[in-house]
Structure formats: structure tokens, C-alpha cells
């Protein structure tokens, strides 16, 4: 990997995001008018405020589309990381209000500062959520950027878990950006331009498109179905439940991460063809819910309380103990809950097998990744669903708190 030579923060800002800074003022005004995004309530219009105590895109009611991108840092200078996060912040302020990161027209001899494909499109509820991977704080036992002392308490690579079949090229990353919006072109435009701005300090490691949300993160939202045809996220945390959010999602310690969270991403590949040949009963027993209604097996309504001890006339548990909902239930996991915010994906065919490459891109926010590790350790060993799914990608990031004003930037607490 080539080392950048003599790069300065100023030059990055100049080449990458100077224009974004110009838009920042406007963005600040817009967010002030709309109030902060603390409670995650659905704002009016299609602009989700970028500024707030928490980053948007977590408690925000899940948008329809996702583009998730991870980056490898190319520079070992903390100054460069700071410059990059500043530039990204200014650009994000513009992008999330539906503005370009620079002019699209302008000098005919220079490449346009903004790539232009979002011209004429609305903000489409775009949120950009930034995360820092374990590699920012330590890489191969090395205090790479001199930030090891600032490492968030729970940030460490996800350990190997039962049933993992991880592919390195779909896993890890020093930085991540979760771009969610109701228009896929808007998310693409955002990531594309942020990637451009990141050069030459960071390069893309892997990306994942999510074409449809599989999670309900607000009481205002109906429960969507995942690619197995089942309602997903019925029992998810909802943003309106502020006590639960504080207990399970937001980091509450006194570190620089306070008000932030942790993001765990897993690319879960489905063996769609086998699933489609499973009988309805098998499918329902695997999940633990009825396919059409979404109700726990033996119950009437989707939101009926899941009773894991209820037995049928044959004396067997109605919701099998190895079903997905049973194993994932908080009562089986010491009361652990996480905020799931995943998306369905398809990346065409698996070239070697000629089968659909599709599944769930699992994203979850929690105040410690250990919560996910606990859950998945259990699921990976026992889940009946494992017959139909494989975890092929994995990453974890600390998600800094929100940016309060247009003077701050994502992760500024780290450099204070």
C-alpha cells in the first residue's frame, strides 16, 4: 500500500470539499429551523436534519434504500483522519439537505466538483451515518494513528462466531458510511462524492447496496418483509421508546463516544433456492412466526406477545425452541435488545453456482457489540434458520455522537 507523501489537511479541503463548506451555512440554517433529531421522530418534508445529539440514520425511521460503504485508511497521520472527517462532515451537511458538494457547472477545464447525478433530485430523507472501525485505534497491535488510548471501550473486531463463512473482501474496514434515503440515486451520489473527497486518504474497501428495508424502527412504520417472505423486525426497538434506546443503543459512558453507538454489519447470504422448496410449515417452524400474518405461531396478531412456553395439542412447543424468534428473544439472552436496521440485497448471480446472490444485509446499532456477539453465538450454534443462511461478511464500527453545530465535525471529540 502506497504511503501518501507530504499530504496536508489544507490540500484535502481544497481539492475535495471546499465547496461543501460553502453549503454548510445553508445546512446549518436548515437544521436549526427543523430542530434537532434527538428523538428520531419523523420530520416534515424530506430533509432529515444532519445536526443533533446523535447521528441521524439510527433512530431515523428506516428509509427505503441503503448504500453502505467501508474504507481503508491510507494515511497513518491522525491529522489526515481529522481533515477527512471534517471534509466529510461539511459535505454531508450539504448532501443531506439535497445540495451538491460543489458546482456541477463552472470551469470547463476542471472536472465538476460535484458529480451531478443528484441534480434535480430531492434530499429524499438522506442520512449519512459515519463509523470508525477498530483499525483506526490499533492495527496489528500497532498504535497506528496515536489514537489507541482513545479506543472505545467495546470496540474490537467481532470474534469468529459459529457458522461464520466470512469473506475478507466483504468484511472489516477502518471507516464506514451508511447512506440511507428513499431514492437509490441519492445514496449513490452521496457515497460516490464522499469517496472522491476521501482520496487520497482513504479508499473504498467494500460496498453493499440494500434495495429495500427489512426493519421497522418507528411505530409509524409497518413491518416490512425480508426475502424469505416473513415480516422482519416486529419486535424491534423503536425510536419512540426513548428509555429502551438509552438502555440498549446509545453509549452512556463518559468517553468521547457518549451519545454515539456501535454498528454491526453482517452480510447474510440466503440459499434462496432451498428455502423456496421448504414447505410452509417448515418455513414457519424455522422462523417461529406465521408467514402471512406475522403472528407468533399459535397467536392471532402480529404484535401479540411471544409466549415461548405455549404448547400445542400435541404437547410440543408452538414456537420451537430452535426457531429464530425463540433463540433471538430477549428472555433467552439476558434481556439484550438491539436496534436492527437491515436491508434486503441482491448482487445478481453467484457466478459459480448460477444461483441468486441475495439475502439480508444486517445492520444493527447497540451500545456494545458484545450484545450482538452474545446473540449470534447462540443463533449460530442452534438456529434452525442456519440451514438457509450463511454469514459471509462482517464488520463493526464505533459510531460517534452527532454533530451539534456547523463548527463541529464527526468524531471531533476524538481530537479534542
Amino acid at each position, binding site marked *: 500500500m*502506497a504511503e501518501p507523501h507530504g499530504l496536508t489537511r489544507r*490540500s484535502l479541503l481544497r481539492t475535495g470539499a471546499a465547496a461543501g463548506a460553502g453549503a454548510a451555512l445553508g445546512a446549518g440554517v436548515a437544521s436549526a429551523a427543523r430542530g434537532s433529531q434527538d428523538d428520531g421522530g419523523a420530520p416534515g418534508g424530506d430533509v432529515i436534519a444532519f445536526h443533533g445529539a446523535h447521528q441521524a440514520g439510527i433512530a431515523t425511521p428506516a428509509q427505503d434504500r441503503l448504500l453502505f460503504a467501508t474504507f481503508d485508511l491510507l494515511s497513518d497521520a491522525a491529522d489526515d483522519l481529522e481533515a477527512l472527517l471534517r471534509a466529510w462532515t461539511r459535505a454531508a451537511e450539504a448532501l443531506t439537505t439535497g445540495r451538491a458538494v460543489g458546482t456541477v457547472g463552472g470551469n*470547463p*477545464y476542471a472536472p465538476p466538483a460535484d458529480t451531478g447525478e443528484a441534480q434535480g433530485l430531492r434530499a429524499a430523507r438522506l442520512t449519512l451515518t459515519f463509523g470508525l472501525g477498530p483499525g483506526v485505534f490499533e492495527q496489528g497491535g500497532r498504535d497506528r494513528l496515536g489514537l489507541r488510548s482513545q479506543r472505545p471501550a467495546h470496540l474490537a473486531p467481532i470474534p469468529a462466531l459459529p457458522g461464520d463463512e466470512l469473506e475478507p473482501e466483504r468484511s472489516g474496514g477502518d471507516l464506514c458510511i451508511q447512506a440511507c434515503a428513499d431514492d437509490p440515486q441519492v445514496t449513490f451520489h452521496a457515497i460516490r462524492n464522499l469517496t472522491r473527497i476521501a482520496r487520497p486518504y482513504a*479508499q473504498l474497501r467494500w460496498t453493499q447496496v440494500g434495495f429495500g428495508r427489512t426493519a421497522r424502527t418507528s411505530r409509524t412504520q409497518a413491518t416490512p418483509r425480508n426475502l424469505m417472505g416473513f415480516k422482519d423486525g416486529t419486535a424491534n426497538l423503536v425510536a419512540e421508546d426513548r428509555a429502551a434506546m438509552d438502555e440498549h443503543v446509545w453509549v452512556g459512558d463518559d468517553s468521547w463516544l457518549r451519545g454515539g453507538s456501535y454498528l454491526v454489519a453482517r452480510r447474510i447470504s440466503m440459499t434462496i433456492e432451498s428455502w423456496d422448496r421448504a414447505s410452509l410449515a417448515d418455513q414457519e417452524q424455522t422462523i417461529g412466526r406465521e408467514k402471512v400474518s406475522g403472528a407468533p405461531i399459535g397467536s392471532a396478531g402480529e404484535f401479540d406477545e411471544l409466549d415461548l412456553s405455549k404448547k400445542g395439542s400435541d404437547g410440543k412447543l408452538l414456537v420451537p425452541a430452535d426457531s429464530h424468534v425463540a433463540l433471538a428473544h430477549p428472555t433467552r439472552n439476558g434481556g439484550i435488545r438491539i436496534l436492527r436496521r437491515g436491508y434486503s440485497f441482491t448482487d445478481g448471480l453467484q457466478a459459480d453456482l448460477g444461483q441468486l446472490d441475495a439475502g439480508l444485509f444486517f445492520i444493527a446499532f447497540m451500545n456494545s457489540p458484545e450484545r450482538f456477539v452474545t446473540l449470534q453465538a447462540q443463533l449460530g450454534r442452534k438456529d434452525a434458520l442456519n440451514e438457509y443462511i450463511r454469514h459471509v461478511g462482517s464488520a463493526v464500527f464505533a459510531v460517534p455522537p452527532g454533530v451539534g453545530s456547523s463548527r463541529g465535525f464527526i468524531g471531533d471529540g476524538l481530537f479534542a
Partner: protein
Amino acid sequence: MLSTFVIGLREGLEASLIVGIIAAFLASQERRDALRWVWAGVAAAASVCVAVGIALHVAGEELPRKQQEGLETVIAVVAVAAVTWMIVWMKRHAPTLSRELRENTAAALATGSALGLIGMAFLAVLREGLETAVFLVAAFNASNDVASSAIGALLGLALAIAIGYGIYAGGVKLNLTKFFKATGVLLAFVAAGLLSKALHTAHEAGWWNGLQDQAVNLSGLFPNGSIRATLFTGIFGIDPRPSVGELLIWAAYLVPVIAFVLAPAKARPAAAAAASAVQQPAISGRARNGLIGGALLAFLATGAFFATASGSSSPAGNEEVAVKLSDAGCEPADLTVPAGPTTFVVSSDGAKEVTEFEVLDGSRILVEAENVAAGLERSVSVTLKPGTYETTCPGGTTAEMGTLTVTGDADDAGTVTAEDEAAVATYRTFLEEQTAILTPRVEAFAAAVKAGDVAKAKRLFSSTRQPYERVEPVAEAFGDLDPKIDIRINDVGEGDEFTGFHRIERELWKENSTAGLDAIADQLVHDVKDLEQRVKTIELEPAQVANGAVELLGEVSKSKITGEEDRYSHTDLADFEANVEGAKAAFEAVRPVLVKQDAALADLIAPQFEAVFEALAPYKSGDGFVSYTDLTSADKRKLSGALDRLAEPLSQVPAKVVG
């Protein structure tokens, strides 16, 4: 039509009056024999006038459009000056015209000089005729319909001759004072219109840019192209949608001149007669000098346009030109732009066969927009120097070819500094070195091919190509050369021959043979020699050099890092290296120019070149590189990432060095 009719009538009548009076006088003196001399003078003068008119018109036609506008401006101003002078002169002399003439004629007769009579008739007709010629050319220029303008002029002349004959024959009595007053008013409108038109053409010629806001818009009352609009413009001499400047100058001329024409004659007849008897020859002489001087001026101006393509500098801002692709071809086919940075915004009306727009300087492609499909809009930019270029939209039916006229000062293309010149000179040296290295390498390679030495030819292949790959964008600028030398099989059109390096590559690696390649090898040698010659005269600017660097990295991203370029030999990494070396040479050439504009950018880019070479280093093998097929995905990704980090800041350079 009306304006040319008035001109023809008025000017024709003046000439025919003079000739008629002379003829009548001769008749009264029983000297009809001398009439043939008069007619000879008239004929000679008429021929001169027609010739001048045609010359002015042709000169105007042959000029590039913007200079045409300039010439039209000059002609119109001369015409306005002439007609103004005539209005003033006629007002003063109409009452005494015929007496003065008779006296002059008598004087000529008295000295017995036929030459004097010829001279009088000649000069009378010449003076009016030249005015008419200049005036008509100006009026033709101002008119959209040359045919009806010509008919108007001819009708006017015919009527004038009829009236002149009538006066001669004694059957027509004309109150010359009233006649000239009436036509004077009409002419004042015509001249005011011409002046306003002159301002308009001066604006189009780039000489005048003030007061261009629209003053009023009467096109509601006088819809564009309607008879009403034609009449309005015909009578009042002004466009229904004049700019502020055009309206001001129109009124500024019209009001005093009409007031002068309509004012009661102040000339005291006796004094005027006495004065004019003395002044007449002097005034005629001045008039003649003035008119001939005016015509000369117009010619000189024409010469000046040709010689220096002059014109005051228009703002050096970017000129945007819209081009639409249709089944016919380019719309519009003919374009005129001022020199300097120009952006062509190319869109399509959905034409299937026509998807490309090119600007050619001879056979060299200056700029092109490709793959413009319906709904797409592509902008391409280039700095244009004054001159005439061809445009082409390949596949078009009627408008496949067009012309692009670039007007203005060479300076509009940006001020050339010593650094600019040094940058271009540095790059030119590199360019000539590389093409000079290329020729003998290709000769050796071709010799191996022709000798059937497959192993040697394979060994030479990648190093032979390297000098070419270092300067490829320049070769691409010669539209026909790059395809001949370096076309890839998937770019070969149906029915076109697959020639050049990659044709030979295919036979060498796929067939392990040189069979049938003799002619291809000879052609390749010929083409690279051609390239070597052509680069010696290519004109370059720092921005083009910098753009070449950007294009070279684009080449790497598009076809080298993907392994498409050398799909048979897999020597893509050698091309990769050569492209980056070429980009570096171009960057280093413009670096002094860049440093003056943005030293930080230069400092950012330089180490990234080294980073790319470092990234390539592990794959060196012997004289060349490992086969592209030996690279893993991770290897390619590293190379690609290093390239992106160089290419991104490098793409900012052309705008910085454009000047």
C-alpha cells in the same frame, strides 16, 4: 424591398436627372452627336459601380461570419455617411441643380471637349452609382430577402430612368425640392435603420457590447416573419425588438436629420447660386474623394480582416454552444464562436445513427463528444484559436459536415506567458523524442514479423509499444492515426480492416504465426513515421498537455488495469507503465505553470506519481513485467487504488494551467 426601391429611385433619379439635363442641354445646342460620349460615360460609370457592388458583396460573403458582420458594419456606416451627405447636399442644391449643370456643360462644350462631357456624365453616374452600390450592399445585408430587395432596387432604378427620360423629353415637370424632401424623409428612415443595424452587426462582430438590453418588444404587434413585421422594418428601418443601443442610435440619427430635411430652405437663392457656381466643382471633387475613399476604406478594412482577423477582444470567458444531433447530422451545421475557451453542449433529438460530434482541424480531432444518446447531454470543452474548422456528426444524412468559424483575436485564447511557452517546448521535446524512438523500434519489430521470427517479434512487442503509449493522446488527436496503429479488435467496425499493433499481437500469440502480416507490418512502419512527422507541426497549449496527462491515466483505468489492451500478449503492465511515464512527462512540463497557480496541488501530485511506480515495481520481470494474468485481484486493486489517488488531483491540473 421598399428601402431598396427608394434607394434605386432616389439615386437613379439624381443620376438620370444630371444625365437628362446634360442631354437636354446638348439637344438644345444642336449637339446630339455629342450624346454618344455622354452614354459612354454613363456606361463606364455604371460598370464600375456594379463591379464595386459585386466586389463588396463577394468580399463580405467570403469572410468568416464574424468578420462579415464587421464588414457590414463598415459598409453600413459608409452608406449612412454618404446618404447623410447627399440629403444635406441635395437640400442645398436641388433648387439650383439644373442651372449649375447647364453652366458646367456649356463650359465643357465651349472648350470643345468631348472628354469633358464624358467626364461629367461619368462622374455624375459614378458618384450616385457608388453611393447606390454601397447603399444597396448595406441594404441587402440588412435584408432577409435578397430577391425582393434586388427587385425593389431595379424597379426604383427603372422608374428613375423613366422620370429622367420624361424630364429630358420635357413631358414631366417635377418639383425637385418637394421630391427630394419626400425622398429625403424616407431615406432618413432607411439610413437610421442602417445605422441601427450597423450597431447590431458591430455587436455580433464583437466590437460593441454595451446597451444590449432589449428596449421594447413589438413582436407582439409585428410577429417575426410576418408581412407586418417586414413592412415595419422596411418603413422604419428598425427591428421590432431593438436593443437599447439600437433604438438610441436610430432615434439620435433620425430626429435631427428629418428635422433638417423638413426645415424650410434657408439658402438665399442668389447667394446660393453664386456660391454653388464656385463650389460645385469643389464639392463634387470632395464627394468623389469621399466616396472613393469610403469604398477604399471598406476594401482596406476587408484586407485587414483577412490579414489579422482583427476585432477587438471579446471577454475571454467561456463560450457555450449548443449542438443537437439529429438524423440529418449536426444542428446547427454551421457555427460561429469567438476565440477562447468554448464548451460544446451536445444533446440528441433521439437520432439513432448519429451519436457523435467532432470538431476537426484538418484531420486532427480537436474535441469530440461520443455516445450522445437521446436525453443525454454531453459537454466538451476546448480552447479555440481563430480560424475555420470542420464539424462532423458522423452518420448524418444532410448535415454530416459543417463548419465552425472562430472569430477574434489570437489573444482571446489566453495570454501566452513565458512559462506557457517553456512548458509546451519541454513537452514538445519529449513528444519528438518518443516518436523518434518509436520509429526504429517499430522498424525492428516489423522486420522480425516479416522475417517470420515469431519469438523475436513477441519479445520486441511490448517495448516497441512503450514510446507510443507514452504519447498516445497526441496520436489520438490525429483522428485517423491512432485507430490504424493501435485499434483493439472490439473497436474494429464492420468492414474495416484490423491493423496495427494489436492485429500483429493477435497473430503472434493466438496463431503463433506471422502469416499474412507483411502488409500490416509495413503499414505500421508507415504510420509511425507519419506520426513522427506530424507531431513536429502540432500546436499545443499547456492545458492540452495537462489534459493529455489526464487522458493517459484514463487510458490506464479503462483498458490497462482491466487487461483489455493486450488481451493476447498480456503485456498490459508495460503499457500501464508507459502511460504513467507519459503522464508524468506531461505533468512535469506544465509543472512550472501549475506552481504559479497552485503550488500545493503540484506538491500533492508529484509524490503520487512515485507511489504508482512503486506500486508497479514488484511486478517487474526482466526487461518488462509479469504477465497480466499473474496478477491477483488484490494486486490489481492496489494498482488501481494508487492510480486513482494520482488521477484524482491530476484531473484538477488542466483548469489551473489554462491561463
